[in-house]
C-alpha cells in the first residue's frame, strides 16, 4: 500500500514556496500533508494532495519542476512511544528511512506518518506483517 507524493523543486528565491502554494489554491487542490527539505541553495517541497495528476499539471503549467514518487503512510497511536514502535520494527530489520514527516487529522484519533524508505517493497511487507495500518489513496481522499 503506497501513496503518491509530489516533490517540487523550489529555488532559494523570495516567494517561490508561496507561488507554488498559490498555484494549488487557484486550482482548488487540497493539501493533505506537506514538508520542506532544504539545503543552502534550494528546497524540495513534498506534498500529499487530494488529486495528484491535477496538481502536477497545475504546477507544471506554472513552470515548476515536479516529480511524483511513492511513499508509505502509516497510522501511529497518538501517544508517547507511538512513532517509536513503528521505527523500531524498521530498525530491527535494517531498513533505512530516507525521510519522514508527520501530520495529524481530525478524522482519526491517531497521528499519520509519511515515510520514504530505502527499500520500499520490503518495508511495506514488513510493516504489514507487524499489523501496522498503512493508508491507501482512498483513505487519503477521505481524511
Amino acid at each position, binding site marked *: 500500500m503506497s501513496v503518491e507524493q509530489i516533490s517540487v523543486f523550489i529555488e532559494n528565491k523570495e516567494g517561490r514556496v508561496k507561488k507554488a502554494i498559490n498555484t494549488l489554491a487557484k486550482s482548488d487542490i487540497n493539501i493533505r500533508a506537506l514538508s520542506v527539505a532544504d539545503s543552502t541553495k*534550494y528546497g524540495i517541497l513534498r506534498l500529499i494532495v487530494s488529486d495528484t495528476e491535477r496538481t502536477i499539471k497545475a504546477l507544471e503549467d506554472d513552470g515548476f519542476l515536479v516529480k511524483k514518487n511513492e511513499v508509505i503512510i502509516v497510522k501511529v497511536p497518538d501517544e508517547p512511544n507511538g512513532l517509536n514502535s513503528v521505527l523500531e520494527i524498521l530498525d530491527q530489520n535494517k531498513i533505512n528511512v530516507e*525521510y519522514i514527516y508527520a501530520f495529524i487529522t481530525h478524522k482519526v484519533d491517531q497521528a499519520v506518518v509519511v515515510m*520514504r524508505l530505502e527499500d520500499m517493497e520490503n518495508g511495506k511487507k514488513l510493516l504489514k506483517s507487524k499489523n501496522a495500518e498503512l493508508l491507501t489513496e482512498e483513505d487519503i481522499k477521505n481524511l
Partner: protein
Amino acid sequence: MVWNKEAECMEKEEKENLQLKRLKNTIKKTYERVPFYRKKLDEAGVSVEDIKTLKDIEKLPFTEKSDLRSAYPFKTFAVPDDEIVEIHTSSGTTGKPTVSGYTKKDIDIWGEITARAIGMALGEKHDKIQNCYGYGLFTGGLGIHHGAHKFGATVIPISAGNTKKQIEILLDFQSTIISCTPSYALYLAESLENEGYGPEDISLKSGIFGAEMWTEEMRDELEKRLGITALNIYGLTEIIGPGVAQECPEKNGLHISDDHFYPEIINSETGEVLDYGEKGELVLTTLTREGSPVIRFRTKDITTLREEKCSCGRTLVRMDRITGRTDDMLKIRGVLIFPSQIEKALLKIDGISPNYQIIVSRPEYLDEVEVKVEASRELFSDEIKEMESVENKIASVIKKEIGLRVEVTLSEPGSLPRSEGKAIRVIDNRNFE
C-alpha cells in the same frame, strides 16, 4: 549554391593581386581623409609607398576598439556626409559604441557578402528567410536584410523577440531559413516543443546563427530539434556587420570574403603575425569599404585561419569557429578558461539544457566559480542528497574539461537568461581594484 563563383572561387594569384591593389587604395584614402589614421600612420612612419607586397601590411599599426571609440561619433568617416546613406553602431556594452558609416557602395558590398552567406546556407531564390536578428542600429537585422534583397530570396523582417509571433510565422508562413543567435534558436525550439510542435511541423532547412559564441554540441542540438543544417555566420560592426565570414554545409570553418576583408592572425600579446594553422587573435582590414574603412582592426576573437581550398569549391580563406575572446577569457586561479569550454562539458550530460551562467567571485583570496545550470525532470529528485550528487557529477565533468573544481548549482527551468541579442553567460564579481 555559390552566389558569386568568380569571387568565391578565385585563384590565389589573382586574389592576391586584387587584395594588394585594394589594400593600397584603402591606405591611400584613409591617409588622405581620416585625420586619426593619418596621425597613426605618421607616428608609425609608414606610408602607402611602403606597401609593395601583401606582407607589408605588417608594417601598419593596429587599430584598437578604443581608437574607434575615441573617434566617436563620425571621425572615422572617410567620405563627405553627402555620401553616407546608413549608420550602424556596436552595442556599446563595454562603453561608448563604435560607429560605422555606409555609402551606397558599402551597402552594396554588405548585400553582396551576406548574399554569399545565404548561398552558403543552402539558399535558393524561392526561400523565405525569417530574419530574427534585431533591426535597428545593431547590424544583424539589416545586414541579412540587405543580403536577402541582393540574393533575391524573400526576407521576413520579423526582427528579434516576440517568440509567440515567431512561432506563428514559422508555422503559418513555413519559413525555410532562419537567422538569429544560436541561443535564441534554442529558445524557439524549446517554445515550439512546449506548444507540442516538432521539426515535422515546420519547413526550416537551415539556420544562419551568429552574434555570439557557440559550440559543435550546440549545433547538434539545434539540428536535431529544428531539423535543420545549422551554420555559423561571423561579422562585426567595426568591419561591416554579419557576413564577413560564413560556413558552408561542409562545416569545416567559415569562409571569409577575403576579397573585401583581409584577415591576419596575431599573437595577442606580442602582436606578431602567425601562420595559417596557428591559433591567435583575428585582425581584419577592410579592402573596399568607403564610409568607414578600418586598417588592421584587432577583433579580440580567437581563431585559426586555413588556406586549403574547401571541398565546396570555394577558395576563400577559412577561419575556425571562434573559441573565445581575448577579453572574455577568464583567468581563474591562474588558469585560462573560456565559457565555451564549460558549455561543451555541460552538453555531455543528459538532461541539461545549454543555458548556463558562470559566476566568478573571490570571497577570500581565492577565486571561486559557480556554474548555474537549469534542472530538468531527469536531474530532479525528491532527495537533497541525490540533487547534490547530480551537482557533483556535473562538477566532475566540468573539471575534466577545464581542470578546475567549480561549484554547480541547479536552478529552476527557465530561470536563467536567454538572449535575443548576446547572452550574458559570465558574471564576474571579483573586484580587482
